[in-house]
């Protein structure tokens, strides 16, 4: 197995774990944690392809990963702000209890 395939498999495993967490947990914060894990797995893929790709000096994969980290940070801030706002409104973060869009 080449090193690149090893990194890709680890990233696939992390992505699946994050997806399972996002789909199975009740707590909205835990769902956000799962989404963060999925984003991180994608970053690992980008960095691995950058490192073992034909032109690492072009920095393409590295730049993509850096911008992805920045976007993920913005996503986390907005997501947790929404969770706090929903908790103030509905007094719960249980996603199974939030089954209507009307406030």
């Amino acid at each position: 197995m080449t090193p690149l395939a090893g990194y890709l498999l680890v990233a696939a495993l992390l992505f699946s774990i994050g997806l399972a967490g996002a789909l199975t947990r009740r707590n909205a914060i835990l769902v956000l944690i799962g989404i963060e894990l999925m984003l991180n797995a994608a970053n690992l893929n980008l960095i691995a392809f950058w490192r073992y790709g034909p032109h690492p000096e072009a920095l393409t994969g590295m730049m993509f990963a850096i911008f992805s980290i920045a976007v993920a940070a913005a996503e986390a801030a907005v997501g947790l702000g929404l969770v706090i706002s929903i908790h103030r409104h509905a007094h719960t973060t249980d996603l199974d209890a939030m089954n209507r869009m009307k406030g």
Partner: protein
Amino acid sequence: MSLIFYVLAALSVAGALAAVLLKNTVHCALALTVAFAGLALLFLQLDAQFAGFAQILVYIGAVAILVVFAILLTRGSETPKDGVYSRNWPVGLVIAACVFAVLGWAVLHSMSALPQGTSAVPVVTVLDIGNALMGRYVLPLEIVALLLTAALIGAVIVAMHEKERPK
């Protein structure tokens, strides 16, 4: 494949599994920090120093702390009585397993198309990254700056306590 890679991969996967499986939400946040640290070390193992340290700064320093703050503000550490998993958790588990099967199959069956062997270590300094960010990637950089500003102001406005309107 070096031993360090296996150790770091096991650390990240174990942290991620614990973050998803543990019952107490605070423990989940701590396990998430371990997973982020393992990923940062994997980045360093891939000779991406800047991305590795950015990962430590942004994820361990900011996102994990943000998650802990959100847990404390929503009293999310109290374990609910009717379990921590959603009603239809088997469906989610099956979907995740299918996704992993497809991804793993794709990686294992495209082995010959992937770049082979270990190429030379790319020498990339922070100076190179800064030059690239200020040269070729300056427009994406500005857009990300705008996005971060908008997202942070938006997060504050969304989470801000609504004052009672005087009647």
